């Protein structure tokens, strides 16, 4: 039981690799076009600075934007104890722990590397989940840290950010240039739009694969995929939307029938950063069966 072999999901690894490869191809193509651009070096240097700042200050930036507060051991002893235990199991240095004061149950991890990582949970999460479920969610976040997801996704979005920047401001570079320059800027502009759209979808896909990997990680650290499943159901927000008022009582109001049924399944699928709940549960249940056999 002590030796936890972290088995890789071959299919997932392949899909992740292909996504990153595709992203690299798109980026190299974009940079090749951009490299003949006069202000190319300036754009790239500015972007590099942004990347550096984003990586270096990511933890503080994220914590600040989410309104998270670092808590010490005396303030949240149980949370610290759980994280310490999980870190031993996952072979990680202990990250800082933060709490966000909101009813929405959620958790996140940030920081550019293992040593500067922060794990944050909301007060709503602490209220909603049982201790075992909380462990499972924290193990999921620790897996993000272990897999260096923050770093991978920041770097992956880097050129996408450049493309977005060029897309918005390319027009200003064109003023005063000759006809040939203008034609070239149009080319750069179109290339940046394509790069941004394609990379956006690819980055989202990468993010979803990383979520699957973190789910797996959590299951292997705690040894109990079932706890993560029930935690996911609780956090999904689907349960919060389920009403408790009787249908016969609300029927008089009649308001809810107006809501149109928009079927945007594919769009939601392509653009979301997290895989759908059902797919995550299915993957975890497969894992559960596998673990029972061992």
């Amino acid at each position, binding site marked *: 039981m002590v030796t936890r072999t972290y088995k890789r999901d071959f299919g997932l690894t392949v899909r992740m690799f292909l996504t990153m490869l595709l992203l690299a191809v798109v980026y190299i193509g974009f940079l090749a076009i951009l490299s003949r651009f006069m202000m190319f070096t300036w754009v790239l240097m500015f972007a590099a600075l942004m990347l550096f700042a984003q990586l270096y200050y990511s933890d503080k930036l994220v914590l600040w934007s989410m309104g998270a507060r670092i808590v010490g051991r005396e303030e949240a002893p149980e949370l610290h104890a759980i994280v310490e235990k999980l870190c031993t199991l996952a072979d990680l240095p202990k990250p800082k722990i933060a709490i966000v004061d909101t009813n929405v149950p959620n958790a996140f991890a940030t920081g550019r590397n293992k040593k500067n990582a922060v794990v944050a949970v909301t007060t709503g999460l602490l209220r909603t989940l049982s201790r075992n479920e909380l462990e499972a969610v924290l193990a999921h976040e620790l897996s993000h840290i272990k897999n260096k997801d923050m770093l991978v996704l920041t770097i992956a979005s880097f050129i996408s950010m450049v493309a977005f920047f060029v897309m918005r401001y390319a027009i200003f570079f064109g003023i005063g240039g000759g006809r040939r320059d203008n034609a070239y800027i149009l080319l750069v502009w179109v290339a940046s739009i394509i790069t941004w759209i394609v990379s956006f979808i690819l980055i989202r896909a990468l993010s979803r694969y990383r979520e699957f990997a973190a789910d797996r990680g959590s299951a292997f650290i705690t040894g109990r995929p079932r706890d993560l499943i029930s935690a996911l159901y609780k956090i999904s927000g689907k*349960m919060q939307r389920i009403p408790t*008022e009787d249908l016969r009582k609300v029927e008089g109001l009649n308001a809810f029938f107006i809501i149109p049924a928009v079927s945007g399944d594919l769009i939601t699928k392509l653009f979301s950063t997290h895989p759908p709940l059902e797919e995550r549960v299915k993957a975890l249940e497969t894992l559960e069966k596998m673990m029972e056999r061992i």
Partner: protein
Amino acid sequence: MGLFDTIFGRRGRAGSDWEANERILDISSAFTMLESHGMKPTGSAGICLKPMSDSDFERVISDVNESISGERGRHKYTADEYGYHWIVMYNDEFDRLVELLHSTVKSLIKNGFGERILCAVFGFLEDGNRIYLVYSYKRGSFYPFVPLDTKRDMEKEVKLASILKKEMNIEKDASCWYPIWNPPL
């Protein structure tokens, strides 16, 4: 549902939408799946009708009696504390129960009571606990309702919905999963 139905908002209109009403028959084909997940039908199902005058309800009763005259004695009429009327039917054969309920609804619609139908409710048992599948005629979709004392077992409902959505049209918008507390099934 096709693209044009979405654009013109054809789904979710009251009573007269036949394509939507036929979706209730999905529950027959989902039967094997329900049983494999430990859900046994209680053999009863009900149609919930909005409040109406006694004379109107008598007309409903005579319509129903006429349309399922061969099955007499295997259904009952009742009212609940919300002032709604119920036609509750019993049949141990699940397929027959669904057929019976559907033909009753058809005859209600034919006689101009379509607008009065609120929903149909099917009862199931799992380890002695009641599970209901509610079919909304307005939205043409099913949703689960699992009472747990005075609350509802939402985790179970979400889980059930994700399993059942392969076989039947499950309401995607969980904010429409209004419970039917204590249905007289």
